[in-house]
């Protein structure tokens, strides 16, 4: 592509103070003065906030008044405001790609303290951009169509809400859930804070709505195996695990469960966190959606040995829902966008041996306690000790594994409220004495503080101190047979030993064990802790760095039910906005091959991960399909005769940048 640009360069250069953010470290005026001396620069300004309306207006006016034909802005990261300034440049009547941005905030002012060195660096980066922009050519963006279907990954409350929102807006949604039923953690809860309404009462209708919705394709017991494509046009492979029960034929009568050759339930029940037992064929939980049983291939005698009497088959009779021949299936779907709502995992308190979880049977986690007081739980809602007796003194150890540099550094946000909820329910139901051991009570948000008040009023005791140890080593007769909590009551300023019957560890949330795998499949990023990374913590909290992939709920970080639902709604809205826009502007950073330069050596053809390079056997030349090219530039770097160019990242443009950053000593 040969460029004719007869006009002399008229570059406008702007350096942004960003209030004190940049100007506090970089001498912006000096940078502007220096830039004014560089070739092609006809106008150089420093300004308080370039991204503000007046700042953008300044660019627009200068383009008109000074007849600028190139613009450079030195401010923050292009990942943040490149679009803003390109729009401003376009509004000034210039092609938006005759613009270059210099990152002197994230890459300079914020990371350096030596003002002289930071200013020098800003000058060098500015020089590079000014030299580079001189090579820029006008470019056109292209629009890619958006496939209107959406994939929602994860059937917890976030995924359910996102799926329903989209489906109600008339979009087709695929909801994929790993477990045999949707519902997630919320289905395991008894009541929800701060209103104490019953979790099942508010969740079950939504689960049923999912089942009934004509726009939702629900695939439980399924996982996303592979994602290919790009925003607007993803091809997703879903692995549908064998349930050994035909979902559409099963009516959920559970006669097969009754009839199973295992007379007694024998295996730990995941829904009740191992506090109760189930059979090899089972309904995940009473309100499960879909209402279909599932067979555990690890436990089923027929599936393991092929030598079972298959009493379940008889029980199912002519419904023929049970299918031992069922095989795992791989299904391909096409969607335009995806919402990831894969949730969280609970911290395993075995990692804190001094709390005795696993050693003392009456040390429980909050979720175990939740199941014990749930009327649908293994004890029918009666809180009982291992011995079968009712506890008279219960303690809650907050921050179990949280806010700890050795385990999880973060605050899980919900454990204070969760513990206070359980404490209130236990007070109400059993009258037992309840003590909460805490570092700081975090009850923010609507109704949170009032909830704390209520717990206090109900006589829940609060001891401020992180529990050092839970043991069963008595030092006095009163401690015999009890669990003893050793803690400094930091408000009273003394170390205390407190005998209790039951200790509940308020374990925090962690990223799912397979979060890295999911992240890879979905092409997202993770924070250092393993939570999925949002595009911007404030400005784009449900977007990811991959266009068309949104996140909702606890996979992004710990949050409570209201926040999860709010985020799910936001993610659905983002997906809707994308779909209804009808298409998406693509960054014109595609590679191209100049036919007259190409020798037809084919070195590039197989390097392209998107198969965008085709070889014409008649002309004996390679060519790039711009619609398929994603702009990575691998072929550009590899073309041995320099015959592949890349819009926005031309060799010459990069060479100018290299020379520019090194030109200023």
């Amino acid at each position, binding site marked *: 592509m040969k460029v004719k640009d007869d006009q002399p360069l008229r570059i406008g250069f702007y350096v942004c103070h960003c209030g004190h953010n940049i100007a506090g470290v970089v001498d912006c005026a000096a940078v502007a003065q220096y830039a004014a001396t560089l070739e092609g620069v006809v106008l150089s300004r420093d300004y308080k906030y370039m991204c503000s309306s007046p700042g953008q207006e300044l660019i627009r006016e200068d383009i008109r008044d000074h007849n600028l034909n190139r613009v450079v802005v030195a401010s923050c990261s292009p990942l943040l405001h490149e679009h803003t300034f390109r729009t401003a440049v376009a509004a000034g009547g210039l092609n938006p790609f005759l613009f270059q941005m210099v990152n002197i905030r994230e890459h300079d002012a914020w990371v350096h303290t030596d003002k002289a060195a930071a200013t020098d660096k800003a000058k060098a980066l500015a020089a590079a951009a000014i030299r580079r922009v001189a090579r820029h050519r006008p470019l056109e963006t292209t629009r890619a169509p958006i496939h209107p279907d959406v994939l929602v990954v994860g059937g917890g409350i976030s995924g359910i809400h996102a799926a329903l929102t989209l489906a109600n807006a008339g979009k087709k949604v695929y909801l994929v859930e790993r477990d045999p039923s949707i519902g997630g953690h919320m289905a395991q809860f008894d009541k929800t804070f701060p209103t104490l309404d019953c979790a099942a009462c508010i969740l079950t209708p939504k689960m049923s709505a999912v089942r009934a919705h004509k726009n939702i394709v629900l695939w439980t017991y399924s996982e996303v195996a592979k994602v290919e494509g790009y925003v607007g046009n993803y091809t997703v492979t879903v692995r549908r695990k064998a349930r050994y029960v035909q979902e559409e034929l099963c009516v959920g009568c559970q006669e097969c469960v009754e009839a199973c050759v295992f007379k007694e339930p024998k295996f730990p029940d995941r829904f009740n966190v191992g506090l109760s037992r189930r059979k090899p064929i089972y309904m995940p939980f009473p309100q499960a959606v879909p209402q279909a049983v599932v067979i555990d291939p690890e436990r089923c005698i027929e599936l393991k040995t092929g030598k079972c009497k298959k009493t379940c088959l008889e029980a199912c009779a002519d419904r023929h829902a049970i299918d031992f021949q069922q095989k795992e299936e791989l299904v391909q779907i096409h969607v335009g966008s995806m919402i990831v709502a894969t949730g969280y995992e609970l911290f395993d308190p075995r990692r804190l041996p*001094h709390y005795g979880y696993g050693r003392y049977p009456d040390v429980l986690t909050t979720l175990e306690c939740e199941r014990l007081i749930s009327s649908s739980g293994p004890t029918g809602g009666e809180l009982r000790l291992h011995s079968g007796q009712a506890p008279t003194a219960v303690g809650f150890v907050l*921050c179990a594994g949280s*806010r*700890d*540099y*050795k385990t999880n550094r973060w605050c899980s946000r919900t454990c204070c409220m969760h513990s206070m909820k359980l404490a209130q329910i236990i007070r109400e139901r059993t009258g037992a004495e309840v003590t909460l051991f805490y*570092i*700081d009570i975090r009850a923010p948000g609507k109704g949170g503080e009032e909830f704390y008040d209520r717990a206090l009023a109900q006589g829940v005791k609060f001891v*401020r*101190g*992180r*529990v*050092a*140890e839970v043991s069963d080593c008595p030092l006095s007769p009163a401690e015999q047979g009890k669990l003893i909590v*050793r*803690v*400094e*009551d*930091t408000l009273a*300023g*003394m*170390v205390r030993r407190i005998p209790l019957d039951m200790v509940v560890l308020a374990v925090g949330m962690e990223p799912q064990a397979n979060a890295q795998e999911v992240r890879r499949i979905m092409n997202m990023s993770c924070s250092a802790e393993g939570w999925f990374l949002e595009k911007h913590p404030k400005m784009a909290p449900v977007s990811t760095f991959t266009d068309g992939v949104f996140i909702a709920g606890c996979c992004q970080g710990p949050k409570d039910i209201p926040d999860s639902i709010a985020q799910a709604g936001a993610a659905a809205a983002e997906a809707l906005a994308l779909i209804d826009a009808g298409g998406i502007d693509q960054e014109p950073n595609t590679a191209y091959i100049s036919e007259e330069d190409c020798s037809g050596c084919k070195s590039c053809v197989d390097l392209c991960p998107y198969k965008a390079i085709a070889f014409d056997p008649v002309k004996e030349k390679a060519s790039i399909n711009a619609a398929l090219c994603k702009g990575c530039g691998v072929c550009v770097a590899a073309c041995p005769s320099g015959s592949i160019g890349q819009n926005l990242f031309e060799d010459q443009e990069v060479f100018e940048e290299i020379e520019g950053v090194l030109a200023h000593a």
Partner: protein
Amino acid sequence: MKLTQKIKYDADRTVGFGESVARLPGCEGLPSCIQCGTCSGTCPMSIYMDLSPRQVIGLVRADFKKEALSCNTIWLCSSCYACTVQCPREIGITEIMYALKQRAIREHTFPAGFPIAILAREFTRMVTRKGRITETLLVMKLFLRANWRAALASWWLGLGLIRTGRFVLRQEQIQGHRELATMLAQTKETGEGGAP
């Protein structure tokens, strides 16, 4: 009933004290303390302490040097490191206790006649002079200097040691004891002992 003012004025602070402790190797975590009390709860000796380890950390951080150096907490620390292992902020609490001990010795603020300080003194003296410790002699010295009644009360211990062949009256001494003394004196002169 005698009333005493418990209020603290800013003039009571030794500004910069907390920072000077936090600069020492192993004590860098001091500023990140969240006052959770795990150290006190974990500490096997905290039940005897006039200030809990958490309170000492708080005082040091707030520059209350006098209070921090005059408590018995730092002397009761048995160096078991339980607090350090359990601290959710990975603060080197034992190291901070050491730093305060060293500072207290330098500023002579430790309680007179307090057996722990006397043991420390006798111990270091014996190591410096002889290069090794002879435990039985050390304990006898301690009892004589600190509390001769305790020495009398411990007669049975001595008898037991004689019975089990462990009572040693001959002072152990290394060949290079003079050389060692010079080596140790070297640091005294330069004043670079690493103490705060």
